[in-house]
């Protein structure tokens, strides 16, 4: 029922039925106004549940929003804002909220107590996976995910400030005003849709005016300050090292992201997070219609909604009375006020029971009546809403995120933060156990003044007058009686579960938590933990401080992984690096494969070709018989300059580069300091102090980092500088007998074998553009790599491919490139995979002993020189089975193919159209001495066994004459 007539209403749906609501108000308020008491089913027993709170701590009213891929489960109806057309669904019930089949769990509840799963489903083990777990998962649970890709947008952001203020109630507003006026750079974050905290809910005066008016005035002042940033709908969810805080912002607006995940770095932080009201564990204290007293005041005073027609109030502190008076003032009938304390003087035009308890409740889908025990007798009272208040728990959570433990304060029967639990954070107001509005205003201002003073500012403190009542409470945790007394509403834990845990010797609070699942629901026991501790303390005969608390961990409220990972999906996770020839290549329908973040063509299909092998064989033929063109720009290119550039190369390469002549290229082998091969590539000497190194595509970043490491950490004495120029140059391989003929059609000056012999390099003019030419070969053919500034890459690629086609060749892709290099026994990272040495790949003579280099000392370790190590060999099939597979293992011919008999493994395979056979590269124990031997290749994964003969890994043109010709 609404207490005020709204100006503007919109329609949303709950389980398909239309409900009217005011835009921006919580869905919970609209449902209460609509008379919808039953909104959810509980996690384990599928008990009917209603709205319990008016904030993010809500345990019961979890709903699902939206449909299809945009479904969002487990949204708290108390913070979900009403908007036109919003689709809200109840969850965890089938076939409907009112007639939930799984409520059968509730009937067998006596058997489902704490530890039930542990005791019952222990044996037989196989049943757990196949039977118990699926059944339990279906029966117990919250909302479900759609299983589809989430199309919603999320965002992440980074913030920096002098002072972060968490919470904008009386203390937070005063802290922000004090710090803001002093000139501090302030972020004030509050999880509510509006700032003001309790002043939005309570009927109180501040500074001689209504609390809400005072809030508006302060917010106006803060909004006008450039140095203050106000963040509503922003929950600070975690405290981390170095003053870093995580925060989740619910973003308003249809087109933007749903949520934004913030990392806020603050020099200092003032925690003004307020307090959460706690329930009382009386019998059947969870029927729809039973809610927190402060929530009742929120709905009545702030949202203008009466949560019931005849409201009863049950409390152990003065807030119960405040609730009763607010209801009367709003015109809502108060059926009874029940105060558990004896020594209170209560007034009001309604029945008052002091020293009384609620001992029973009735009503299947909604509260209908309660039974009050009073003066030794009982009395039934008809009521459709019971407001309960068991006192207040300061919101200490953030102070515990770095191992801090809160301290017990007997006078308020609550835990308060231990100072300095988080470096740089101070608590003020209700979260610090300071409860009256006046005291909160004062503490917020005083703490902010201290903090701002500590930052070298000169703050002034002025505090407005406000209500300053003493908080009087008599602890009341659980009320005896027939029926379950719920503590953790979200995980369905009740008093008896806790007692059972204690009885079965799970007496430590951490053990009790895990045995009963108390506090392990998404709300992390915000409202229930202190009650549970009190019950455990009682059951074990200890005090609450001795019993201790469990650990509060981030996040304070559930954070969608989509928000934390915002920007890291799809291309945000793996950005694309595209070569200059990409567009042309894709236009030719070449399938692209990933090489790190790069995309490279597998092959260039021609009309009539139906299988990749046909294209690949043709492209291999281009290179062997005419000329092929391939984009090799993805290889790392590092420019190295300086007086000690040659000395640097001598130190990072196993072989010597200082002897390399200007205008020449040399193959280099790079070791890790532990003696294994890191990478290989060619390095060209363009000048006395100028080299260009190429790395493999995969190791480009690694080698760059390594060179900087060598220059800065190992050899700061060397005067040289390195710079990645991979992106600056487009580079193309031109390979095949007609390579020079092709190049001479595009170069400004013709080249000959005499002025450009094998391994020559230097500047050239390429169709009028200053470029570089390297006579190097990864195919074994007469070949070059020609480089131009990247902006000319696409046009040069087009030109080269056109000219190649006129000479009977064309473009080739990665498949052909791989075949060409296997035919020649050239290695890639399939062979130098991190466990191979120079000796293993037959390049041990390249490791110069005349100079020190990275990896040289360790490469001489006895274990790395063992002749029985697995060495690089070639393989050819000799039996009936011709197929070779990479990853297959090698065994002696008659040996059983088991691990103990392993002789080696296959690293690379291809079909060689040149030699018309399958070829393999492999590592075989003592392999170089075993050429000619027949071994068996077994691929256990694919079920292939083949007889292969061991041979030299250079299958084609072993004396290398073709490359020099």
């Amino acid at each position: 029922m609404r207490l005020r007539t709204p100006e503007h209403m919109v329609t949303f749906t709950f389980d398909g039925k239309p409900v009217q609501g005011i835009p921006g108000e919580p869905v919970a308020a609209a449902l209460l106004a609509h008379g919808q008491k039953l909104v959810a089913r509980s996690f384990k027993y599928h008990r009917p549940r209603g709205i319990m709170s008016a904030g993010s701590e809500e345990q019961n009213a979890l709903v699902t929003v939206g449909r299809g891929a945009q479904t969002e489960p487990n949204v708290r109806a108390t913070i979900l804002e009403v908007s036109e057309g919003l689709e809200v669904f109840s969850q965890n019930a089938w076939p409907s909220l009112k007639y939930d089949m799984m409520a059968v769990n509730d009937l067998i509840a006596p058997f489902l107590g704490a530890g039930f799963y542990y005791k019952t489903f222990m044996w037989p083990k196989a049943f757990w996976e196949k039977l118990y777990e699926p059944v339990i998962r279906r029966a117990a649970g919250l909302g479900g995910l759609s299983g589809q890709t989430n199309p919603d947008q999320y965002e992440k952001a980074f913030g920096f400030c002098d002072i972060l203020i968490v919470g904008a109630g009386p203390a937070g507003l005063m802290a922000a005003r004090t710090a803001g006026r002093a000139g501090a750079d302030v972020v004030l974050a509050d999880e509510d849709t509006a700032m003001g905290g309790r002043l939005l809910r309570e009927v109180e005066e501040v500074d001689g005016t209504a609390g809400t008016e005072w809030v508006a005035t302060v917010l106006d002042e803060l909004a006008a300050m450039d140095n203050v940033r106000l963040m509503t709908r922003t929950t600070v969810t975690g405290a981390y090292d170095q003053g870093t805080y995580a925060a989740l912002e619910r973003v308003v607006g249809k087109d933007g992201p749903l949520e934004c995940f913030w990392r806020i770095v603050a020099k200092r932080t003032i925690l003004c997070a307020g307090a959460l009201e706690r329930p009382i564990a009386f019998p059947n204290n969870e029927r729809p219609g039973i809610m927190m007293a402060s929530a009742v005041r929120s709905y009545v005073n702030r949202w203008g909604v009466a949560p019931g027609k005849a409201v009863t109030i049950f409390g152990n502190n003065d807030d119960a009375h405040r609730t009763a008076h607010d209801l009367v003032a709003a015109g809502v009938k108060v059926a009874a006020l029940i105060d558990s304390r004896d020594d209170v003087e209560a007034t009001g035009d309604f029945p008052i029971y002091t020293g009384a308890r609620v001992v029973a409740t009735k009503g299947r889908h909604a509260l209908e009546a309660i039974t009050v025990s009073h003066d030794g007798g009982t009395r039934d009272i008809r009521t459709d809403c019971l407001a309960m208040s068991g006192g207040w728990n300061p919101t200490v959570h953030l102070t515990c995120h770095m191992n801090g433990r809160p301290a017990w304060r007997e006078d308020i029967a609550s835990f308060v933060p231990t100072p300095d639990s988080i470096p740089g954070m101070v608590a003020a107001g209700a979260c610090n156990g300071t409860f009256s509005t006046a005291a909160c205003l004062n503490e917020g201002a005083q703490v902010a003044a201290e903090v701002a003073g500590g930052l070298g500012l000169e703050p002034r403190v002025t505090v407005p007058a406000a209500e300053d009542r003493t908080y009087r409470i008599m602890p009341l945790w659980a009320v005896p009686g027939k029926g379950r007394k719920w503590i953790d509403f979200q995980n369905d834990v009740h008093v008896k579960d806790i007692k059972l845990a204690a009885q079965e010797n799970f007496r430590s609070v951490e053990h009790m938590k895990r045995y009963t699942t108390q506090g392990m629901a998404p709300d992390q026991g915000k409202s229930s933990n202190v009650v549970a501790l009190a019950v455990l303390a009682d059951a074990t005969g200890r005090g609450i401080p001795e019993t201790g608390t469990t650990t509060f961990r981030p996040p304070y409220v559930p954070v969608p992984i989509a928000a934390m990972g915002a920007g890291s999906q799809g291309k945000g996770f793996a950005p694309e690096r595209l070569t200059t020839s990409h567009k042309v290549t894709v236009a030719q329908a070449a399938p692209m494969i990933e090489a790190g973040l790069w995309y490279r063509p597998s092959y260039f299909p021609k009309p009539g070709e139906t299988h990749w092998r046909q294209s690949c064989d043709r492209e291999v033929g281009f290179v062997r018989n005419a000329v092929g063109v391939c984009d090799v720009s993805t290889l790392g290119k590092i420019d190295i300059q300086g007086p000690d550039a040659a000395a640097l190369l001598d130190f990072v390469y196993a072989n010597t580069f200082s002897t390399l002549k200007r205008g020449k290229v040399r193959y280099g082998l790079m070791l890790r300091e532990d003696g294994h091969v890191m990478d290989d590539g060619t390095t060209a000497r363009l000048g006395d102090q100028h080299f260009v190194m190429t790395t493999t595509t995969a190791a480009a970043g690694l080698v760059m980092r390594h060179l900087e490491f060598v220059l800065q950490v190992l050899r700061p004495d060397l005067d040289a500088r390195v710079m990645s120029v991979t992106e600056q140059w487009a580079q193309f391989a031109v390979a095949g007998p007609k390579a020079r003929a092709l190049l001479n059609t595009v170069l400004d000056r013709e080249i000959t074998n005499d002025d450009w012999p094998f391994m020559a390099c230097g500047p050239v003019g390429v169709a009028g553009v200053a470029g570089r030419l390297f006579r190097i070969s990864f195919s074994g053919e007469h070949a070059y790599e020609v480089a131009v500034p990247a902006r000319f890459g696409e046009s040069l690629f087009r030109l080269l491919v056109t000219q190649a086609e006129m000479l009977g060749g064309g473009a080739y892709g990665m498949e052909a490139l791989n075949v060409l290099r296997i035919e020649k026994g050239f290695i890639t990272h399939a062979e130098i995979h991190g466990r191979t040495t120079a000796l293993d790949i037959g390049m041990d003579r390249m490791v110069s002993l005349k100079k020190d280099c990275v990896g040289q000392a360790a490469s001489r370790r006895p274990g790395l020189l063992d002749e029985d190590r697995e060495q690089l060999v070639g393989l050819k099939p000799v039996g009936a089975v011709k197929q070779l597979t990479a990853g297959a293992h090698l065994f002696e011919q008659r040996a059983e193919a088991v691990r103990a008999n392993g002789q080696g493994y296959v690293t690379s395979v291809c079909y060689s159209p040149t030699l018309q056979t399958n070829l393999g590269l492999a590592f075989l124990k003592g392999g170089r001495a075993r050429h000619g031997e027949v071994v068996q290749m077994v691929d256990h994964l694919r079920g292939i066994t083949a007889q292969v003969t061991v041979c030299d890994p250079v299958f084609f043109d072993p004396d290398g004459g073709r490359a020099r010709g």
Partner: protein
Amino acid sequence: MRLTCPNCGERDRREFYYYGDAIALRRPAPDAVPEAWDDYLHNRKNPAGDTTDLWFHEAGCGAWLVVDRNTVTHAVHGATLAEKAKR
């Protein structure tokens, strides 16, 4: 976590590549005994407390840094350029 790069100021740890113990600064001579190389390559302390390690400001200025920090309190005491570090 943030590190203060001497070149760039206080920067988020996502800009840095973590290498490991700063023992890397003290590379043995090529002819050092095998035990010295073994210690250099493989043997590491696992301190609960102050530690010194190397970080590379890869997404920043490209400097290798020697960082003093505490593995228990997570306090970062400071960072210096590796090329100027004592060896």
